[in-house]
């Protein structure tokens, strides 16, 4: 593993470790990533082209904002490229992102580089980016990442999201509780008694605008959005326990919108033998798509139109994926598809403030490419012994993966004795031996364990000090 550069802050007498991170592009993704990294005490410089956007960022972020072209050597020098430990290139232009990384590699030898690419040739670019010339550590393709996440949940009607932690050994499953679910009205204690598969735990509850890290007497209610952790090899038992019926085989899926993400999902699904119909309004675009896909039927029609959907026989399809570029269209047509008999509706919603509302409306799962990208980047930015930080909802809750250090107060005690703050829960432990467990009150954390924690926003520093040696606010 690469050493993460650490610096000791000379600010005041507080000992802190931080990186200087240069972010190219101050759009939605750049600003979100910056906000998070500033909160984790890193020094951020943002390069952004639009003067208006710069003024906006200047007002809302405690970061240095440099106006200029992200692919210009002069601008990057002005932004302090040579002092940067990390470069995150997330401008709207692939060319600028690659050039920015090239300059960073050739001019200043910046150690860590992350770039977002949108081109469908991303596979070809990956090998080039990883090579000596650019040496980019992480290339993120928003459509690819989102398509991957969508594909995981297509065949699971009750499941809204599945994420993986601890190198894939632990899964986090999100589901909306329907009113007829047997889980409604049950408390955590009841669940434990009814004997779920041993490696299952309810980690987080989203109820309306509330976030709850559940304790023994918290009850589940209809309409709750629940996150459950389970070891990945037992995840199907968990589904059974939770009353989620997995379709034995996903047969028919509708995709609306022939943008790249739509194509990406179609290619993945047809590879698994699913019958896919892809709706696109633009004829020329349809032709182009038909050249790319194999078995997918490309339909030149408006996939948000009721008549069309009925004609194309929407009744009984396994999933309806609204992946157009228009948030409102996606939300409304997903609701329509449910009414017309689709078993699962998935919508792409990019405006972050729509997300909680869309969830309440009854769409089974909602994805935002922006959030997916922000998550991916933040998981990659490693700080000391914290392996990754993932945020949920509008940053109201987080999942942290870290390695527990010897000599901290977390070691050698049962979780019950540990007295974690209210609003935090240990969701998974992965031992160096390869053993993975979803802990109970009597589980004991050992030094070197990889620990997955769920907590409310703002508890991170407190948890850090419980698990990581020399962290927190030690006086220098």
């Amino acid at each position, binding site marked *: 593993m690469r050493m993460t550069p650490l610096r000791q802050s000379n*600010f*005041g007498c507080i000992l802190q470790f931080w990186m*200087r991170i240069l972010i190219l592009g101050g759009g939605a993704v750049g600003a979100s990533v910056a906000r998070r990294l500033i909160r984790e005490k890193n*020094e*951020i*410089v943002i390069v952004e082209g639009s*003067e208006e956007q710069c003024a906006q960022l*200047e*007002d*809302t*972020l*405690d*970061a*240095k904002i440099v106006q200029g072209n992200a692919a210009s050597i002069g601008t990057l020098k002005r932004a302090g490229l040579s002092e940067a430990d990390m470069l995150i290139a997330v401008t709207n232009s692939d060319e600028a992102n690659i050039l920015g990384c090239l300059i960073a590699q050739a001019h200043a030898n910046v150690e860590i580089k992350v770039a977002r690419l949108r081109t469908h040739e991303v596979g070809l670019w990956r090998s080039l980016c990883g090579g000596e010339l650019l040496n980019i550590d992480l290339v993120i393709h928003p459509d690819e990442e989102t398509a991957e996440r969508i594909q995981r949940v297509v065949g699971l009607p009750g499941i809204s999201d599945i994420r993986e932690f601890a190198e894939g050994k632990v899964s986090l499953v999100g589901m909306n509780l329907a009113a007829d679910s047997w889980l409604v009205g049950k408390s955590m204690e009841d669940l434990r008694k009814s004997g779920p598969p041993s490696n299952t735990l309810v980690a987080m509850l989203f109820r309306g605008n509330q976030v709850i890290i559940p304790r023994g007497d918290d009850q589940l209610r209809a309409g709750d959005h629940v996150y459950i952790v389970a070891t990945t090899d037992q995840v199907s038992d968990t589904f059974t326990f939770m009353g989620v019926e997995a379709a034995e085989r996903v047969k028919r899926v509708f995709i609306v919108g022939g943008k790249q993400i739509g194509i990406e999902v179609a290619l993945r699904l047809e590879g698994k033998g699913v019958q896919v119909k892809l709706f696109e309004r633009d004829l020329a675009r349809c032709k182009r798509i038909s050249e790319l896909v194999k078995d997918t039927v490309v339909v030149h029609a408006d996939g948000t139109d009721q008549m069309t959907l009925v004609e194309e026989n929407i009744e009984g399809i396994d999933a309806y994926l609204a992946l157009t570029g228009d948030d409102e269209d996606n939300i409304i047509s997903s609701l329509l598809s449910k009414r017309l008999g689709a078993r699962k509706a998935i919508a792409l919603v990019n405006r972050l403030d729509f997300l909680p509302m869309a969830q309440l409306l009854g769409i089974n799962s909602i994805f935002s490419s922006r959030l997916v990208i922000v998550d991916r980047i933040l998981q990659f930015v490693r700080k000391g012994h914290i392996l990754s930080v993932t945020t949920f909802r509008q940053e109201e809750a987080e999942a942290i993966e870290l390695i527990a250090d010897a000599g901290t107060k977390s070691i050698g005690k049962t979780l019950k004795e540990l007295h974690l703050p209210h609003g935090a829960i240990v969701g998974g432990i992965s031992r160096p031996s390869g053993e993975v467990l979803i802990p109970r009150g009597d589980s004991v954390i050992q030094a070197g364990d990889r620990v997955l924690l769920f907590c409310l926003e703002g508890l991170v520093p407190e948890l850090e000090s419980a698990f990581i040696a020399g962290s927190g606010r030690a006086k220098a």
Partner: protein
Amino acid sequence: MIRWPTVLNATGYFILALTGVLALTTLIAYFLDTADIAPLVSATITSGGLAGFLVLVFRGPVREFSHREGILLVLITWVSFSALGALPFYFSGFVDSFTDSFFESISGFTTTGATILVDIEALPRGLLLWRSLTHWIGGMGIILLGIAILPLIGTGGMELYRSEFSGAKSEKLAPRVAETALALWRLYVAFSLAQYIALRLAGMDSFEAVCHTFSTMATGGFSTRNASIEAFNSPAIEAIIIVFMLIAGISFTRHYRLLVERRPRSFFGDQEVQFYLGLLASGTLAIAIVLTLNSHQPLEAVRVALFQVVSIMTTTGFASADFELWAPFAQLLLLALMFAGGCTGSTAGGLKVARLFLLFRVVGREFRRMVERRGVFSVRLNQEAVSENTIQSLLNLVYLAFLINFSACMALTAVGVDVLTAIAAVAASMFNIGPGLGSVGPTENYAHMPVLAKWVLSFCMLAGRLEFYTVLIIFTRSFWRK
């Protein structure tokens, strides 16, 4: 919506910092064996009480400030500092009224240096130290100090930073506001130390060296002598003060580039610095010639002209000669230099040299546009194009400055001040210089001004220090609308 508890709580922390400074001053005054430290003690207690009240009563989670809350915080902090800083003078009995005490205090914090004291030398040393210290704190900025040392400001700090530190928009020394503020303050302290040592070497006693260092680096102008720098009659002291006034009048970001980052080209290649030095040189030359033609020896003329031009243009306001005895042309030239002021990002007041430079460029562009009807021209400063928005706000600022200037002059004449005095007093207050012309010249003071005039001038000082918008915006109705 304005969350008053948040604003007042933060103000409380600032006042707590002021209390610390007051307490320190009291302690030093005690060791200077000043007979009477009672006024300083009472002021410390009052200030501490107010701080405690605000901090404890409006306790709550530290939040980010909105735009409006930021402006209010800056204003309330400045006004409360001025009011609390007036207490030592008021309690001491050397100053008759609270109006006068407040005038002296705000003149200190805004680094104006206008005084209502008739006999400065009669004051105990503790009070004189406090008087100079107000300069030093206000020079680099109360809020900037707060951002650097109080951990309560994160996002929204930029807003505060900008309200007090001119020209901050283009360059931030570090990504974090707090570290930028700390870097600026460090530089300020380093320069102050250097000047103190230099003055000691030139033979000044340590107490006076401290006071004059505070006044010089802040471009304030309070002296411990009635006759200001003239009292020392020492070319060495004058030379040292000239050098440090010059330094204080140049942007501290430039100093940072030169001294910390060691990039001399970024310092000497800066058009503002060049223009600033050019203006100083030509002003000195013009006055020296006029003085030589009238009365002075050439060498003597250069010496007094240089000191006075630097002192006025950097908005310090020390006097090494009574310039009211000079030819009218020289006096008017000094008045004109008052408007120019120092560089953006320095401790000096005035309209700022970069703005003046841009104004010339904007006017020049207008002429070129008239000739080349279809030509497109951009205004540049240091090879970088200046946006139309910046130009617009620059023109607005100059217009606003003249509007306030004129209104304040009207107000002064309305309460019976003569025209020359009114014009000079307003300019000297608004651009934070201190001594003016007429009956407020370098050998006179502001004691005889009518009460109303003193309040108008106090307002001008604050408006000038915070560059007009911050002070005036609270008088607009839209500011208070939800």
